């Protein structure tokens, strides 16, 4: 059983999606129950993997029993297990929130969300580059369908841009993957790590260009400058539970950058090591600055949160760009807490919009809200976490990044960018909060109070985010261990390919 545990995060949602398609749309309660059950099962599996990965063991699952460089492997190390757990937590909240009514506005919401989860989990687990492409495509086609869920011209317009940008990125991904195969003769990440380190100088140029093409592709997914323009429109147009689930999607891009540029092309990859290093930090800092400028300029709440998503992706990328154990550890902690905060924020914004009547999500004067105290408190928690103010987890994450950057060459730039944009982001969130909660017309509340089914997921996500402060020490030591594991290429290669003197062509 435990040998097959690694395959379950992909198999459970795939099987459940097939089952849910077979269930007729009229049986929505049954669909909701099964969809939630599937997410809970994924959380259980992810927690089991997380618990067993704390020892440092790398779980390798060879599909069909074919050995590693030739067959396909799924690999669960600390970072992968952490990402699986995060995905399952956000998925439970998104599906529970959607059960409040969003899932009735289209025919196949629950099956598509399960396909999306299969793609996400697969992308976190896969051990070779071509399957990373395949799982990316699975999660993308599901995300295209989810983005247009509910229809309307604004969603369709945003979806068309999103689809075209991602299809172009997929073409680049295939070029990079096949170029790597053509030069090194392998697509398995562990095998690739070995062969990149042993590459002939003649092959440096094609390998380096393939690696940088991959950086472009993952940059599109991670919404890095200058490739983030699709994100604010798409996330602002998406339904709230979909946008909450999309909070994990930018993290897939960052995860892939960590895997490929932190591990395969990591510090010990011979002469080709750290091929992406000159690009990562400048790109990340530009992303932070432009994301925060967008947040300051945003005229709607959804636009504000979408641009804060861009800024948080940039902040994570800046820490990844250090490519040190400290930097990666800070990135992992920041990524985990910002995913939860952004997801909670997207759910919360829709709760606020529902109570504002005609003002909707613009930052204009509106009628008073039925639950302004409760929603205001939640807004404070989500906003301050996203901005990175004490005592919330965002502050701890930023502190770790600043500490990690202190002694590096790019440190001064990272300090300036993070501290400066922190102030601007605080202004943007404070301005939005005061506009929405304090500048209200006299009169009776516009909307009814939020139903518990919608309120509970948002509160729970925010609570998990706050709990990360209380458990920051164990989480940080886990992130340290995960970062050390990423940089320990020898152990990774040995876990997948066996001892070095084994049969390798």
């Amino acid at each position: 059983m435990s040998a097959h545990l690694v395959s379950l995060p992909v198999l459970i949602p795939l099987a459940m999606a097939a089952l849910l398609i077979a269930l007729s749309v009229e049986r929505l309660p049954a669909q909701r129950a099964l969809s939630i059950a599937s997410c809970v099962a994924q959380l259980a599996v992810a927690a089991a993997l997380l618990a067993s990965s704390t020892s440092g063991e790398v779980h390798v699952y060879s599909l069909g029993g074919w050995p590693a460089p030739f067959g396909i492997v799924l690999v669960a190390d600390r970072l992968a297990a952490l990402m699986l757990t995060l995905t399952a937590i956000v998925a439970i909240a998104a599906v529970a929130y959607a059960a409040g009514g969003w899932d009735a506005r289209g025919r196949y919401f629950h099956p598509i969300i399960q396909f999306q989860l299969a793609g996400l989990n697969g992308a976190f687990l896969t051990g070779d580059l071509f399957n990373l492409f395949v799982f990316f495509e699975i999660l993308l086609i599901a995300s295209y369908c989810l983005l247009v869920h509910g229809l309307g011209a604004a969603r369709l317009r945003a979806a068309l841009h999103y689809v075209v940008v991602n299809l172009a990125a997929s073409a680049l991904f295939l070029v990079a993957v096949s170029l790597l195969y053509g030069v090194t003769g392998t697509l398995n990440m562990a095998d690739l790590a070995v062969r990149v380190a042993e590459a002939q100088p003649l092959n440096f140029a094609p390998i380096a260009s393939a690696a940088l093409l991959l950086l472009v592709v993952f940059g599109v997914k991670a919404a890095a400058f200058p490739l983030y323009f699709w994100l604010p429109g798409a996330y602002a147009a998406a339904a709230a539970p979909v946008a909450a689930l999309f909070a994990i999607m930018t993290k897939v891009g960052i995860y892939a950058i960590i895997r490929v540029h932190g591990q395969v092309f990591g510090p010990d990859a011979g002469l080709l090591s750290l091929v992406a290093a000159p690009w990562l930090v400048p790109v990340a800092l530009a992303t932070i600055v432009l994301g925060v400028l967008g947040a300051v300029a945003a005229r709607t709440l959804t636009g504000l949160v979408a641009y804060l998503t861009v800024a948080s992706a940039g902040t994570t990328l800046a820490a990844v760009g250090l490519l040190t154990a400290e930097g990666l550890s800070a990135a992992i902690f920041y990524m985990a807490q910002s995913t939860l905060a952004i997801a909670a924020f997207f759910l919360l914004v829709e709760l606020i919009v529902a109570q504002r009547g005609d003002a909707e999500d613009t930052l204009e004067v509106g009628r008073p809200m039925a639950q302004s105290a409760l929603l205001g408190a939640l807004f404070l928690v989500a906003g301050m976490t996203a901005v990175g103010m004490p005592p919330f987890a965002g502050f701890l994450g930023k502190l770790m990044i600043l500490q990690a950057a202190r002694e590096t060459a790019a440190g001064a730039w990272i300090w300036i960018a993070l501290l400066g944009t922190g102030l601007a982001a605080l202004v943007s969130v404070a301005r939005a909060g005061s506009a929405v909660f304090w500048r209200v017309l006299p009169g009776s509340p516009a909307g009814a109070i939020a139903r518990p089914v919608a309120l509970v997921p948002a509160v729970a996500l925010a609570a998990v985010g706050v709990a990360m402060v209380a458990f920051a020490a164990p989480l940080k030591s886990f992130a340290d261990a995960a970062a050390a594991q990423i940089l320990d290429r020898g152990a990774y290669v040995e876990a997948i390919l066996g001892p070095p003197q084994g049969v390798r062509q």
Partner: protein
Amino acid sequence: MELLVASGIGLVAACGVYLLLRGRTFPVVLGLVLLSYAVNFFIFVMGRLTVGGAPIIAPETGTYADPLPQALVLTAIVIGFGMTAFALALAIRLRHETGSDHVDGSEQPTANTCNRTR
């Protein structure tokens, strides 16, 4: 043969990129199709160009055609086909909803969607 194949891929990719940058949805979808053709051919070529080689490695055959890129390209073709169908359906739906086949849904430049109410 290498020169012919390489410049052919380059030409198809260039046409694809040009069409991708057009303002109407139909040329954009065609551009995506051409781009994916070029990429598929590129994957195929990455197994090296061989004429009359056996598809598998056997000790007696000197040259062989690498079967892996052929398997990869099959996967890429299937995925590309599905994505093209979806993009086409989306473009048609957008045309129905907005009455325009412009990629922005209207002939006039519009404000960023995230700054407008839904």
